[in-house]
């Protein structure tokens, strides 16, 4: 068990990061901390993808010195997936931050439970 985890240490770390981010996103009350958790969660997935795509001893997939064998290069697809994932994660973070700003302006707190509490007293929100 331990040796298996040691051999796949990158994947193990990636899953642990995913777990940390997931629990933060789920249980933190502070919206900013939730967002940081979301980014850690996504980073965990990206680390998983990147470590999977990398094969020890091989080169980046750019043809050099006329070497054309497939076995000389690593798989470029996971890197492409990570890039796409980063773009998605950035846009989601941007939207969430703008929502957080809007809520902070209205309720003057970042605590989501407190926001619910205050929204009950606001006249327009009945």
């Amino acid at each position: 068990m331990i040796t298996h985890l040691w051999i796949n240490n990158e994947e193990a770390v990636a899953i642990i990061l995913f777990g940390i981010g997931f629990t933060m996103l789920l249980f933190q009350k502070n919206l900013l901390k939730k967002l940081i958790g979301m980014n850690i969660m996504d980073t965990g997935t990206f680390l998983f993808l990147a470590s999977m795509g990398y094969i020890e001893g091989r080169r980046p997939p750019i043809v050099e010195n006329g070497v054309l064998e497939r076995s000389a290069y690593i798989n470029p697809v996971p890197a492409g997936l990570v890039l796409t994932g980063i773009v998605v994660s950035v846009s989601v973070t941007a939207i969430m931050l703008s929502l957080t700003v809007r809520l902070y302006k209205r309720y003057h707190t970042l605590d989501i439970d407190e926001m619910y509490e205050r929204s009950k007293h606001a006249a327009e929100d009945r």
Partner: protein
Amino acid sequence: MEFITNFPLFTIVLSLFSGVLCYMLKPRVAKIYTLVYEGFLILLVSAVLYYVLATGQAFTYVMGEFPAPWGNEIRAGVLEAMIALCFLIVMICSVSAGFRFLKTDMDESKLNLYFTLVNLMTAALMSLVWTNDLFTGYVFLEILTLTSCGVLIVREIGRTSLAAVRYMILNLLGSGLFLLGVVLLYDLTGHLLMVPMKETIAELATDPAVLPVIGVAVGILTIGLSIKSGLFPFHFWMPDTYGWATPTSAALLSSLVSKAYIFLLFKTYYRAIGIDVLQQLPIRHVLLVLGAMGIVVGSLQAIHTNNLNHMVAYSSAAQIGYIYMGIGLGGVAGYTAAMFHVMAHAITKSQLFLTTPRLAEVAGGNLKFQDLQGSALKTRVAGFYFTIGAFSMIGIPIFAGFSSKLQFALAAVTGAGIKRILIVMLALAVSSMLNALYFVMTLIRIYTPDGDNNRSVMTHHHINYHLPMLLLTAANLLLGLRCDLIVDLIGKGLAMFG
């Protein structure tokens, strides 16, 4: 005829383009453009449906010059075309019928931005329906999440922003899990396209040591999508989200967005994992039980609430439970019932969400039950459409809801063990009773005179409201009266799907 194979791609690319275009148009023009454009899309998808029925086989559109297992693909069969057509009809009806409230709920000079979101949402919905690639599925899933958050927060009151934050957080958890599931499957198989992935998984599943790993990947992916679509116990965000959104957004979110996630899950099961492998995994039992529990709990919470929109939202949770129960039941009959209910619920729920604000309007803008007394007498047209939706939800014969319950019962009886028959039949019986209880109570409430003024105060409804409502009613009756026709089409679609 051959040209029709390009149409699925057109529906995605033109929608993306329309989104950008609406950003630059004036609000009024953007509305007219969107309605005309959605009508045009309905024509395109109808042509695709006609084409696949005429040729009798599904077609795959290869993007770029890279054939499988590389590149990216779009695939269209009878089932995809039917679901896309249903989505587009509900979309055009929701946009048209809810427009009056849109004008009051948001700044009128910014209305074109709403149509930008609607068009981007159409693009995301269409790609989730057509795609043959799991990672494309993930990307458009996120676009759908962002646009659905967008249509939610256009109503600038505190409660919608709060609901949107909660909705987003849960959706992000779901997307994260879905992405992890896809990555694990990619790790196992080395493919992202569904067809080669299915072949590899079928090979891998013969090894008993690998099967649990596939089970974990599929389980993570399933949890992700069930959080996003609101399966019990992840349904608690529904009342706030649907209850505080502007009517068009509530209809779009409950009828289309959650169904698109379910369709993606179904597609992943059927086309990327394979039904034979799925039968060996424990996840289908979990779906059956959670679906059945969702039906009962959703209905009980619907009875408990004091707000009409919240009641309709909780009833959504119950209806999502039906669909998952069908998927968990398995077999052609179970999947047919699930897909039938996707369409039946999309049509009925949008009709209800577009009617409730009009009932509230004559009751002083309040959705609390005690204020709604007699509201259907003051606006008889809205009362009539609400009654149709409610009858369909209860499962009165001739309406869509009855046909789908019939399909579920048939699916349970044919080919399932005694335990499964019991679970399904009990869930159906309890939920029909509870549905009848809360919808009949609501109907009695809105048709009981409230004493002072029972004359119709709102006789005039715009044609923009009547036309979509009549269309939804007609679709409802079509699903109810000619369910044999629809079931036959779904059967053809499933045969092509595998």
